[in-house]
């Protein structure tokens, strides 16, 4: 399992109820169910992924998080997980609001546009960055609202969203991110994982 999922799993207590938004083929859900006895639910757009989840006995609803989060009742989950898709929504603010409505807490991960390699690409080569975490070119990227770890920090501050914990991930290394080390972590983390709500 990829490092990001290990971190997310580490943030989730056993025996809770978790909604995985954009659950893909269900690998995180499987892990949470088997290892932590978590009651999982998934929301996924891609038909093939939905089929794979169903074959694994994982409950999944085929649909688009942008338009279909309304069907989940208020505070019906202990945690809602959104892995690396916030930046792909037309209206990430609305999606985030919905996640916080559905879950008592929310885990959001973002590819960090503030990572030093990303900054270098733009600064020295003058082209839109293409990296391992951001593999698409400007004309075919699904990412509409790229942001940095610092941006999301600021966003939560402005919207009065409580930040409980932030973890930066760079390959196999993880580190806690606080306001005091934000500038440096924003430069050296490929991913930011936020526990909010």
């Amino acid at each position: 399992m990829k490092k990001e999922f290990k971190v997310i799993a580490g943030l989730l207590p056993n025996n809770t109820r978790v909604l995985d938004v954009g659950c893909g083929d269900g690998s995180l859900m499987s892990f949470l169910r088997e290892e932590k006895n978590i009651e999982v639910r998934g929301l996924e757009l891609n038909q093939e992924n939905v089929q794979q989840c169903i074959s694994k006995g994982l409950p999944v609803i085929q649909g688009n998080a942008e338009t279909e989060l309304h069907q989940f009742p208020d505070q019906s989950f202990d945690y809602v997980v959104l892995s690396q898709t916030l930046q792909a929504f037309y209206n990430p603010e609305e999606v985030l609001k919905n996640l916080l409505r559905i879950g008592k807490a929310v885990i959001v991960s973002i590819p960090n546009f503030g990572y030093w390699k990303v900054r270098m690409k733009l600064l020295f080569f003058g082209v839109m960055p293409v990296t391992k975490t951001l593999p698409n070119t400007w004309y075919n990227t699904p990412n509409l609202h790229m942001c940095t770890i610092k941006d999301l920090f600021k966003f939560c501050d402005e919207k009065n969203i409580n930040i409980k914990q932030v973890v930066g991930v760079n390959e196999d290394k993880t580190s806690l991110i606080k306001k005091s080390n934000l500038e440096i972590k924003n430069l050296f983390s490929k991913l930011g994982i936020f526990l909010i709500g």
Partner: protein
Amino acid sequence: MPSLAGLFFWMNVKTEDINKIIVKKPLKLDCGKTINNFPLAYETYGKLNANKDNAILVFHALTGDQFVTGTNPITNKEGWWITAVGPGKAIDTDKYFVICANVIGGCMGSLGPKDTNPENNQPYGLDFPVITIKDMVKAQESLLEHLGIKKLLCATGGSMGGMQLLQFCATFPDKAFSAVPIACSSSHSAQNIALNELARQAIMADPVWDNGKYVSKNVQPKNGLAVARMVGHISYLSEKGMQEKFGRKLQEKADYEFSFNADFQVESYLRHQGYAFVERFDANSILYITRAMDYFDLSRQYKGGLVEAFKNQNTKFLVISFSSDWLYTTKENKDIVIALNASGADVSYSEIITDKGHDSFLLNEPEFLKTLKGFIDSMYEKFKNEKRI
């Protein structure tokens, strides 16, 4: 026939290769009348295992019957769901024990309007009580009792079969470990009621129908029933699917005949479907079954609506809809998912993208069949484990 059942709760009666039980337990119908000692025809495929944990109940649709797969001994045609049910199929009869019963009100062996009314020894006709989806489902629960099945591995059905399934889950919340409602709705829409009314009016406008009394004269309002079937067939296809299948193609002719014969292939198709249908179905049964569908509104039965209907569900659901189905739309199917979600039930949902309309659930739609198989097989593993614990 009821007198034979005197000593036993049920008895098996074999006529014309149709398996039946006689349900002795009185069934109070929604209309207020009570029926008892009535025949319920059914068919099974595969073997029930020793743990009795591999049973799957299939609910049939409006014009279906208990002959799900293999060869229907009455019509000598393939069973209506041979695409999904059989050895090695999505619902694998090498592995699972599949049960399907003819609905009451039907005409394939279960009590229906063509049967004899014991009060006057005449065929019931319109004296047959108006039945509901709930009545159909309650009758079938008696069959499970007869077969000694406490909990089904899965219950499934498309169209009216899906409606029966939703009712079954609401009325008997502990009877199914999992459920797959397909291309259905929790309440019949105005459009669906209108289409059913069209079918009924076609039958009633046929002078042979004679207020439903045609049965005693040994005739059938064929023209009206055929038109009713044609209406159905149009609603089972999609605009795009119909255009692709038929377009403006002519039926075995090079040019227009300038007559009212079936010039177009689509006309020929409808006529064929319509008149083939009258050979195997009773016109009054269409009236009764379409009525049951129209009266179906699950939320109306529960204060607090659909969410309340699904409260305390331990059943694991998979709802499936088809993108081009305009009879039971994706929206209607999603409403079921939303209610199940709101009631906290374990629910999965998949929309299959296809041009084949409502009929898709009966056709060889690989994505649909793969999803169905994946779900049922995974549920079997879970059910076995749960039973062991």
